[in-house]
């Protein structure tokens, strides 16, 4: 069961340019990072799209709540999403 959930769990880093994502939750033990993300609008239900990637594919710019947020893939992998 647990394995099953992990397998079809997508993270923000998996989002492709043409997709519309919806944030589910932030999976991290780092409380400061989590609250920082939340204050930037990364909360469950927020719609998010991938704007563009840096020349080497990392970091990437996401579009949410009408603004652009730059995030490294390492951080984006801690944010679980669902693709609409």
């Amino acid at each position, binding site marked *: 069961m647990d394995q099953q959930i992990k397998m079809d769990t997508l993270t923000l880093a998996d989002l492709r340019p043409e997709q519309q994502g919806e944030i589910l*939750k*932030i999976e991290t033990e780092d*409380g*400061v*990072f*989590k*609250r*920082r*993300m*939340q*204050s*930037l*609008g990364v*909360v*469950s*239900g*927020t719609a998010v799209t991938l*704007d*563009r*990637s*840096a*020349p*080497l*594919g*990392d*970091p990437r*710019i996401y579009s949410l*709540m*009408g*603004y*652009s*947020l*730059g*995030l*490294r893939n*390492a*951080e984006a992998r801690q944010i679980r999403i669902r693709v609409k």
Partner: protein
Amino acid sequence: MTSPVTVALVGNPNAGSTSLFNALTGAQSAVANYQRVTTSLTAREVTHRGVTLRIVDVPGFFSTSSQSPEEKVGCDYIHGEEPDIIVNVLDAGHLDRSLFLTTQLIETGLPRITVLNMMDEVRRAGIRIDTALLASALGSPVVETCALKKEGIDALLDAMAAMALAAPADPLRLHYDSHLEAAIDRVQQHLSKLHPQELSPVRSRWLAIKMLEGDDEVLRHESNHVELVEDIKGEQSALAHEHDEDTASLLASARFAFSNGLLREVRQQEGDPTAGFKLTRILDDFFLNRTLGLPLLLGILWVMFEATFSLGAIPTDWIKALVQMASDLVDKTLPEGMFHDLVVNGVMAGVGGTIVFLPNIVILFFFMAVLSGTGYLARASFLMDRVMHHFGLHGTTLIPMVAGFGCNVPAVMATSVITNKRARLIAMLISPFMSCSARLPVFILFAGAFFENIAGTVVFAMYMTSIGTAMLSAVLLNRIIPGSGGDAFVMELPPYRLPTMHSVLHHMWDSAQGFVAKVTGVILVGSIVIWFLQEFPRDIAYSQDFETAITEQAALPDSPEKDAATRTLKSAQAQEKLEKSYLGRSAIAVTPLFQPLGFSWRESASIMTGFVAKEVVVATYAVIYAQEKGSEQLTETLKGAMPPATAIAFMIFTLLYAPCLSTIAIIGKESKSWRWAGFSVVYSLTFAWVLALAVSRIGGAFL
């Protein structure tokens, strides 16, 4: 009213609080189009309609609970100082995100004024906001402004004055779902029992919410109440069990739900919602292009340094002519003697030789103002993050690094954009490698004298060396300095904005003033001191009797050979005099250290005096050459004075060796350790020596 009313300008980073502060108070604080330009509190008093307002510019933050160090200054201020009025500055184009902070400010219970800043951008995007409805929903007056165009400033001052005089209104209360409300209620009751009569209901509710959110600071404050802390943990796990989410997330979601609901009612979109930022998209397709992005960044920097050199050359020639005129005038009017020599060969050569670089510096600052004001600098750190990550640096380190092109002192201060302590220390220690505008005169002088045809490119290459060394040394520092831990790259990319003419001009004016102040201060004093050091002692035992030899020559019949012989004799005498002066002797004493790099005692002397401030390097050169070769133009005199490879080695050494006194002081202050400041001196001297040696050896083989 006797005591001033404290008004705090609070908003997200880059919401325009500082621009608003400048517009309100007539201050000239630095602004740019990226986050965290303002890192400390600034206050100014203004009297409006008979009310004295003490307006405080608070560094921006996104949330009162995130507790990342760069946001702490702002949070601590709001919680600790409790200003009389909070002016909540919102970027009207980014309300979806900015209202989150508003929901937290509501809970402080302090009187608030809501400012919708950058309304011009919003209107252009065809968005209409029902401010009356927004005001009633937020329980605060709403004022629309455009700080950069100084629109709505009077209305805002009116609102502040009115609120200062009015009786406090009932604070608004945000409602959460029933489970959360029940939990808040229970914690609140517990708190009231622990602190009877001390807490107002607003305050205890606020504390309860903070504790449930897991605010480390508030929890630490209450940590002696073990039972309370246990209670909160219980509430948190019960909530987590019911909602499958931790309490902080529940509260955050509820806050965004409130703001989303509110915006659905007050905001109307006419036309295409992306129209407003269409230009930003088009520009980003270009500047952030995956193939073109990095070459473009490099190209932009090249243009910047090339223009600094070649555009600067024109006004520089005028200043040179002016300096020459002044010098000639003084030369003729002052009677022969020591004072004459001091003014002509000391002051005029040193000060005049340095002031000619004013145009270059002003042009450099123009470019820096444009880069930071448009929002390109934020993009540059995004583009460079991956590359810099390899060097153990964070993309945002680019911001202090670029600031370092101006001056290393603000660069060290600007490292506060970096959250992680160790990463910040590393950024601080590499900042002095950034080629500040004080090194620019050395590059321009040497590049102009030794590499006339490719001078701009040589200057650019020096800047690239500067960046390269900074990055490489970061790798080394990452090994040396104990500990680990990077920083998450979380950066908002602001839309492109046209910097106002006023702020760009202000930047340039500021740099010009700073440079002139330095030239008339430290450079002037330095030139006088250097002149005395090279003039004394006067009773020099020459190796041969120059006077007699010159007199003998004079007796001979006129011929080209006679003139040449006299010139050689005179120059040999001047050189020996310099070498045996205090300056020459002390420089010769340290020259063995620099011999491997191919430097003569003149270079050693310039390097020594340059410790004070790097502009003195050129001033020293100017004084020495004025003495040795007569007051000709420095660039002309310098041509052929050393092999090109040595010239490059000298430029590199000047670029990298020990930070100037002010920078050493600021590193000591910001790192709170004089050990690191001392380390920085030794470290950079070593780097400079090794690199200069390598260049003079390798370059010597080719050039």
